[in-house]
């Protein structure tokens, strides 16, 4: 058995330093992108988890108490879930910010647990995977995002015109996710405005040009939401 896996003072120092190093690596990547949790946060989480795991082991191996060596480590995972949930921000436009940071922080905590338990290889491998996910996949994500959802604003007079438009959207394999009809009081040209939220692969330009020439439709517009 490798002596570093035992609870010796040398092994303790190595575990603490290694967890700091792994936390620093992940944290620096986050800091370089100017994300809310920088390297200080990541070092704290990674080091804290490592100490928790070492303590859990020490209760059983060092003090020979009837303790479960995984209980403290396990609660670290729940606790970091709390911290992660708190770091997620809901913006005014009702979108989410900080999720990747929360996920990264959570996984960094588990890296700390691995190192604190003496499973150094897993800790280092985990750090490498976290860094790979943050950098490589981040670039990949930006390249695969398309624009599947958009909103059409249609001004019309006739009730049947809307039915025609909706049928045309369905025939073009667009899913209508939401529909809003607004009655226009001060518009001399049209009585109603409809906002149609669509999802699908058809191009907005093609849809608009076809809808514009439909009878009863005053105008059609692809609007940014």
């Amino acid at each position, binding site marked *: 058995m490798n002596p570093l896996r035992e609870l010796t003072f040398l092994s303790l120092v190595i575990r603490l330093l290694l967890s700091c190093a792994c936390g620093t690596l992940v944290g620096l990547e986050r800091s370089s992108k100017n994300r809310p949790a920088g390297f200080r946060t990541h070092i704290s989480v990674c080091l804290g988890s490592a100490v928790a795991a070492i303590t859990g082991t020490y209760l059983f191996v060092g003090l020979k108490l009837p303790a479960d*060596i995984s209980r403290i480590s396990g609660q670290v995972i729940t606790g970091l879930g709390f911290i992660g949930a708190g770091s997620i921000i809901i913006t005014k436009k009702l979108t989410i910010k900080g999720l*990747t940071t929360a996920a990264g922080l959570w996984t960094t905590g588990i890296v700390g647990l691995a190192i604190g338990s003496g*499973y150094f290889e*897993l800790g280092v491998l985990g750090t490498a995977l976290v860094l790979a996910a943050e950098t490589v*996949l981040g670039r990949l994500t930006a390249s695969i995002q398309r624009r599947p959802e958009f909103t059409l604003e249609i001004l019309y007079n006739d009730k049947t015109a809307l039915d025609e438009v*909706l049928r045309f959207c369905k025939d073009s394999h667009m899913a209508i996710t939401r529909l809003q*009809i607004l*009655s226009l009081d001060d518009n001399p040209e049209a009585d109603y405005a409809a906002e149609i939220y669509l999802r699908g692969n058809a191009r907005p330009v093609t849809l608009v040009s076809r809808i514009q020439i439909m009878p009863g439709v005053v105008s059609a517009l692809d609007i940014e939401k």
Partner: protein
Amino acid sequence: MIPALDAYRDFSFLSAIIRLLLALICSTVIGYGRSSMQRTAGMRTYVLISVGSCMAVLITLFQFEMLQTAWAGTVDEVGQKSDASRMASQVVAGIGFLGAGLIIKAAHQQVSGLTTATGLFATVCLSMAAGAGFYEPVILSALIVVLVLNVMSPLEITFKRSVRNIVLNVEFYDVKDIQRISDTIREQHAAIYDIDVERSAQEGDKYPNAIFILQLSKLNHSHSGMLSSIAELSCVRSVQELIS
């Protein structure tokens, strides 16, 4: 179970790498679909959480390896107190909390982010199966998750647009107009389950609005037909169907 995989069921560093890679691949595939749909949780989130939960199970296995070898003396002396499922159970709780942070209470009594949270939860659970060396359900359930999250998404929208129960948000000029609106709804042979007035008095430039929960008639359950006939009323400012 598939016997060919038995060689990698024993705990070794090689099998740990295989398990992590399996979790990585599955979460990348699931996350790819979510990213391309521009959902809040993208590939990075899925992969990070998946790797973490796979590692949590591997740590448990490592601890048991240690209990059987280096610490066998202590185990004889004090007794076996460890619970192999403890770490995994806390992963479930931890991701539950993280998911709770993702659920947004949007306007008009709607929530969003629920599918994202549950998708993460399912991914974490299958990553833990990978970490335990229980390979058989991993790929199968990853395929099902991809199917449910991506392929079934347009299906669900189509389904929701054809159901008879609909939720409408109606903006009108005066609260007294609710009577006329509900009369119009009943003229279409629809049943009204609930009317919930969100804003009664005018606040700034906002008009009063109410949420109508209805069941359309069996014969004619066109959503746009109902929306149009409500929008035609002179007292109605806008009408919007709410689909969560």
